[in-house]
């Protein structure tokens, strides 16, 4: 149970393992599903459909998952320079 909320740092940024699994699953399913929908004798079409699926998957995961970053805006109090 507790593993669900484990956060780790990979590729220089923080992720939640559960969200990563969801994201990889959604992206892969969208990509491969789109690929298999393409006419099977046309390589370029297959590739194109697959990519479209990947983009759709990316959009879906973007909506579902929130970034694990705290953004702080630092007002510029230090000396400015022209």
């Amino acid at each position, binding site marked *: 149970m507790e593993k669900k909320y484990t*956060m780790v740092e990979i590729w220089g940024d923080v992720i939640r393992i559960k969200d990563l699994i969801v994201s990889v699953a959604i992206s892969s399913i969208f990509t491969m599903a789109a690929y298999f929908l393409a006419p099977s004798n046309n390589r370029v079409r297959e590739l194109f459909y697959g990519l479209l699926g990947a983009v759709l998957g990316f959009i879906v995961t973007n909506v579902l998952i929130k970034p694990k970053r705290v953004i702080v805006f630092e007002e510029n*109090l230090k000396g400015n*320079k022209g």
Partner: protein
Amino acid sequence: MDGLLILKMVLAALGAVVLYTFIGFIPGTDETSVLMPITLTVVLSGLEPIVVLTFFIAAIVTLNLTNAIPTVLVGLPGGVMSSPMMEYSLFLKDKGLSALAIKKMAAGSLIGTVVSIPVALLLAHILAPYGKNIQAFAPVMFFIGAIFLSLIGKNKILSLFSIIPLSILFMALRHLYWGTGVVPRDTNITTSFFLGITIGPLIVSLLSLLNRKSLETMKAESYKRVVIPGRSIAGSTLNPFKILKKSEMGKSFLAAFIANFPFVLSPVGLTVLLGEGISSREKDAVKKAETAIAVMGALIQATYLSGIIIPLIALGIPLSPVSIGPGSALFNAPPVFTVDKNLHHVLESWQFVFAILLGAIIALAITYYVTNRFAWEISTFVLKKIPHESIIGLFISLILLLSYMDAGLINVFGVLLIGIACGTLNKLGVSYGVQFMSLYAAPWIVEKLISF
């Protein structure tokens, strides 16, 4: 050359600019792994070779500039190439000079592109007569290249040790596919193997999560804290002659010029070496950091552009780290390009010049303006809206797709195997360059091995 083709080239360049502006702003994305799969897709999509080249040039010019933004602005390197700037950007950020640093970096980048393209084209022209001779020895050259890249890297003996085992791994998989009839004998699976190498370090990191002990060391207690500095007034001019001081401008010119000649060396290594060397004379710490940022901005563009332009035009085989890594799809992407028939063979000299200039000018004009004006807005948007999980998911699904297309389900696991092996070697300290060269040299190495 008709209007439609030119329109396609312009659209390809614009597409590359939009795509790689966003990718560039995302911290931590490795250049090879973001450039190679997408370029490969563009090649395989059947677009005209000249359009492909325009796309690639626009992509690297854009990425090299935008990758430096997160580095300078929030202190997270946008990619491998911008890591040499880290120390100086953090220092300037501390002094509240981020806005100025971005302008200096962008102006340096502008100079790097403008200087290196004509120099690289000229150098390619001079080397071209020797290209034919080198091509005849291509298989041996790749082997020598693997040894050479091992020797100039950090872990020389380790890298040398890894060349033959890696070649055996690649050839073993190919023979397995031929033997089981998954692919015909004359098909050399290359592209998905490439992706396996590229994605290796990520695969190893992801698999380490399944080990309890290593999971503990990777755990993060809290969200990533990102500080976006305030917008100090750095003047509104876009004129690089006003942004850079005379000495900074001269040093950026010099660095970008020199960087073209050792095009077979690692671009990031050159950026560190020349960047530190040229800016080290400055005594004042702030001045030194500003100079270093401008010079490195120039070097990043120059090393990348010469690393792709010279091998493409003069040699026809990928004998530099840039051409064998991020640009490999321009040399070898069966069935469209092969080592014997790639961009080098199908494009005329003037087409090279035209595509390179068009791609670079469009990318530079837009990206230079955008980084100067909207660096804050785009950074904030990307950091707030794009989760890291989605990006990793996108990459994994792209590899999945391209592996499956190459040789079916067995190759998905074949590529996973390559990812595990190469990622482990990568973490031990064997560079991408050595691994890519080994992949190219594999048929020759194995052929020679079995004759003893």
